[in-house]
């Protein structure tokens, strides 16, 4: 029991910061991120004996964290519609050419990009964070979110499209999220 407790403490010390940063980027709210990680670690703690036997305990914790983050009451319906309700066929709608070098507008204005990221839905940010902050593959993101890789692609695509729209919209200059 003692070693189990010690190993959990070690897990917290090693990964609380990383989970917090991921949560912060998903929620875009530092306080909410802290709450989410605390709740996440409480749940991991309650199942620690089983979790520590897993090949990748961090992946388990990250899954709990993302599920908690996406479980917001106000956004639940919309998120499900975006993530679960879409198939690969849906991704042909308003596709964004991710491979193109099309300019995103004034990317030198990094603060605008940061503001624009804050305007994305939590769902859209989650996919971008997992792909480009956590460096997970599309397959890994799909597995974590419980959806298809096509849905991950389309969610990322929509996120990027939204960013483009925000960066080129006059409203972004005022710091107000556009439509």
């Amino acid at each position, binding site marked *: 029991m003692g070693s189990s407790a010690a190993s959990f403490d070690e897990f*917290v*010390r090693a990964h609380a910061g990383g989970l917090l940063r991921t949560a*912060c980027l998903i929620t875009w709210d530092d306080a909410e991120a802290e709450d989410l990680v605390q709740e996440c670690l409480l749940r991991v703690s309650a199942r620690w004996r089983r979790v520590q036997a897993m090949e990748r305990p961090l992946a388990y914790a990250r899954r709990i964290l993302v599920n908690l983050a996406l479980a917001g009451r106000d956004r639940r319906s919309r998120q499900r519609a975006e993530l679960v309700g879409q198939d690969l066929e849906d991704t042909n709608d308003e596709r964004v050419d991710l491979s193109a070098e099309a300019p*995103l507008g004034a990317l030198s204005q990094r603060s605008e*990009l*940061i503001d624009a*990221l804050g305007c994305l839905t939590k769902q859209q940010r989650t996919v971008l964070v997992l792909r480009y902050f956590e460096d997970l593959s599309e397959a890994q993101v799909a597995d974590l979110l419980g959806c298809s890789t096509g849905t991950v692609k389309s969610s990322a695509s929509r996120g990027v499209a939204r960013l483009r729209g925000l960066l080129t919209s006059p409203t972004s200059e005022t710091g107000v999220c556009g439509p």
Partner: protein
Amino acid sequence: MSYLFESELRTAFAVRLETLSPEREARLCDFDYRSRVRRRRRTWAAMGTGGTALTGGLLAAILLLSSGASVAEGWTAVPNAPSAAAVAAATAACNWVNDRTGPPILSGTPVLTDGRGSYTAAIYVDGHVAHICISNGQRRATGIATNTRILSVEAAPGPDQLGNPSGGGGSAPGFPGSSGQEQDVQGLAGSDVSAVTFKFADKSTVEATVQNGWYFAWWPGDSWPTSVRVTTSTGTLTSPMAVAACRSDTTGCVFARPKP
């Protein structure tokens, strides 16, 4: 995704994280997760013939370690009628937590409301299920004191009896005391029951709210009452609480009932 954009995105994430206070990570590392794990709910059979024997030493230890439902800041042993705003705030806080942890969202009109200092509790009944919400109205994990629990609503007890008792405890940082623990008990009350008071080993008492055929009480800490006093139109009766069985997570146990 263009390499240019991908790179800018990574940089933007990094810049955003520069504003994240290191104190938050420190707090997360310092948090005692094991003591915050909620204990399982305990539910007992309504009536029985006798209590399960308790290992005397264990009971003594429990009662000695927990000094009864002693006075705690922000909490009162005698309940009051909370305002509608307080009930709404507590319910909203419980729903805020429930939304993250899974219990159903509370709605409708509560059958019982209980105010104790800065804490408000409410019981919502949905068919044969009752949801108990105790909260200080906070929605922040660092200050929250919310515990929503669920029990089955069974047959009503006799007019002078308490029936279908359920109780248990949990912990959250916002409950009174350093441990953040609370214990609560609730159930159906007979139509002639006008008051229910729980007594503890240290002679302290906690008065329950009796309302719409329900009784409910909660107190900080992890102590458990030794007896319950039930007041009806014919007088007052005191019965022992089956502390041992009620503190276990095994089979049901016998709860106090007014003796005829």
